[in-house]
């Protein structure tokens, strides 16, 4: 297990290193002069010079890269040119919308998918299975931002159960959770559809295994064999998908935040893109990619903890 973990850790560090070079390269090297790019064609030369000095553009690319990375490691994400505040503060204000939204959606998606997948597998070919599988086909095909608009139309505009958008802050946790509910449902549904399909097919694979037949031969009912043996083993592939989904939920949240006017990382990115504030875009993108890589690393480890065969292989 320790050797496996060390191996994964090495590839984690390499991935983070390469990802940081790619992001730095796209944002700071490809535009030529990032300062001139950020300020646009009408900028005065002295303004450009000031920004160049502030961004440290007079130094070599290598020095700038190392300054940026060591800054990130210390939690210093640089200074936003448009907001005139540290990027870390901007992120800190908004991550408490984006992260809870992704986690909320992940919980909802799991809560919907597990029972649906297990039920469909246990009633294979029956009307319940067919209905659930039909529903997942629709769930996979629905654009989540459109589904979000439909939710707003029904539950905010017509029924007035929820507000159509905005975020009241965490001072009243109940209101905060309520305002994240429609966005979380919109995010969760397509993912739940995928997860339910994976759960069902993984469970069906398990139900065909010898150890299930043995369990049945020992006198366990179908239901007992399913719950005691099949579900536990079927969870292994499902776990990977959940890990992958977290990154989709975090990135997908960027779009859903637009529908509900939530002040999260997504809005920060779009405002920064239109203001050409590359410093903010660079750090937020790095943060997103960093999170995805870390989560995948954690999933790999969890996977190995659950399935001893994997540890032996490496």
């Amino acid at each position, binding site marked *: 297990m320790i050797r496996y973990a060390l191996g994964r850790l090495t590839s984690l560090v390499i991935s983070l290193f390469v990802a940081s070079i790619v992001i730095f390269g796209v*944002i700071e090297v490809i535009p030529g002069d990032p300062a001139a790019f950020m300020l646009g064609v009408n900028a005065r030369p002295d303004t450009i010079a000031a920004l160049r000095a502030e961004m440290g553009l007079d130094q070599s690319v290598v020095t700038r890269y190392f300054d940026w990375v060591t800054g990130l490691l210390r939690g210093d994400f640089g200074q936003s040119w448009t907001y005139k505040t540290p990027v870390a503060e901007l992120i800190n204000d908004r991550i408490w919308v984006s992260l809870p939204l992704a986690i909320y959606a992940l919980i909802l998606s799991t809560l919907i998918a597990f029972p649906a997948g297990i039920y469909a597998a246990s009633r294979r070919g029956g009307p319940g299975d067919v209905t659930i599988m039909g529903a997942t086909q629709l769930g996979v095909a629905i654009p989540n931002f459109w589904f979000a608009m439909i939710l707003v139309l029904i539950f905010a505009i017509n029924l007035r159960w929820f507000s159509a958008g905005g975020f009241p802050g965490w001072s009243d946790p109940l209101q905060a959770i309520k305002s994240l509910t429609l966005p979380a449902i919109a995010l969760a549904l397509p993912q739940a559809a995928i997860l339910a*399909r994976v759960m069902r097919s993984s469970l069906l694979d398990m139900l065909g295994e010898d150890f299930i037949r043995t369990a049945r031969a020992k006198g366990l009912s179908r239901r007992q064999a399913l719950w005691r043996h099949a579900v536990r083993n079927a969870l292994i592939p499902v776990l990977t998908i959940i890990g992958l989904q977290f990154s989709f939920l975090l990135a*997908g949240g960027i779009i859903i935040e637009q529908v509900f006017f939530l002040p999260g990382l997504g809005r920060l990115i779009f405002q920064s893109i239109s203001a050409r504030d590359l410093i903010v*875009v660079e750090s937020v993108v790095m943060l997103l990619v960093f999170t995805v890589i870390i989560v995948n690393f954690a999933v790999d480890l969890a996977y190995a903890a659950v399935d001893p065969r994997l540890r032996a292989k490496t």
Partner: protein
Amino acid sequence: MSRNLIIGALLSLFFLALAALSFVWTPNDIEALDIPNKLQGPGGANLLGTDHFGRDILSMIMMGARTSIAVALVAVGIGMALGIPLGLLAAARHGSLLDELIMRGNDLVFAFPSLVIAILITAVFGASAVNAIIAIGIFNIPVFARLTRGAALPLWERDFILAARVCGKSAARISAEHILPNITNLMIVQGTIQFSLGILAEAALSYIGLGAQPPTASWGRMLADAQTLVSIAPHTALVPGFAILLMVLGLNLLGDGLRDWLDPRIRVARV
């Protein structure tokens, strides 16, 4: 042929036909504004109603189908053109440093969700349909590379490959002449699925303004325009949404149907 295959093929063909028809005929000109006639409901002179500029929604759906299909198709093409050779190469050099490099490179691209790639590209190059194609296309490369490698590896163990090697064929020739034909079905099925994901991705990118720019019609942009109108003119949001839903549903059913029809044994990773 299964029911899935028939329904999926009919839905997909319907939208392809709409897009093709838009090159020669649309009910109205989508660049002609007719403000007095704005936000008309469906069923009147305009079959699917009009938007906030009085433009005919059916015509915009037809033009939007063209954008969606073009973007998704080219993105799948990029993914196949680069991903399949990379996967074949990795399989042919299985266990080598090259194989390891290709697979780790794939993992790295997967760490950038396509939306994040799109954000990086548009932050520097600006928003356009071409940049949307590149963003979706880059994300497709590791999908095809991984699938190709996974399907090619067991083939390399087979006797007919051994026979080809004994004949003195190079790894490149074996990959092209013997491996590739045996994985074509799998690629077609995955291509259909990536095509449907591409339609969804294009709609999402256009919705947030990172995709096709005005005056190019796009389903995602129609939804963005409809967002503030949804309470007074729900059809402006419902029609493009259903267009996306039906097109994606059709392609998914087609993919499933093709998979069962072409070869019941193959399994496609649907993530």
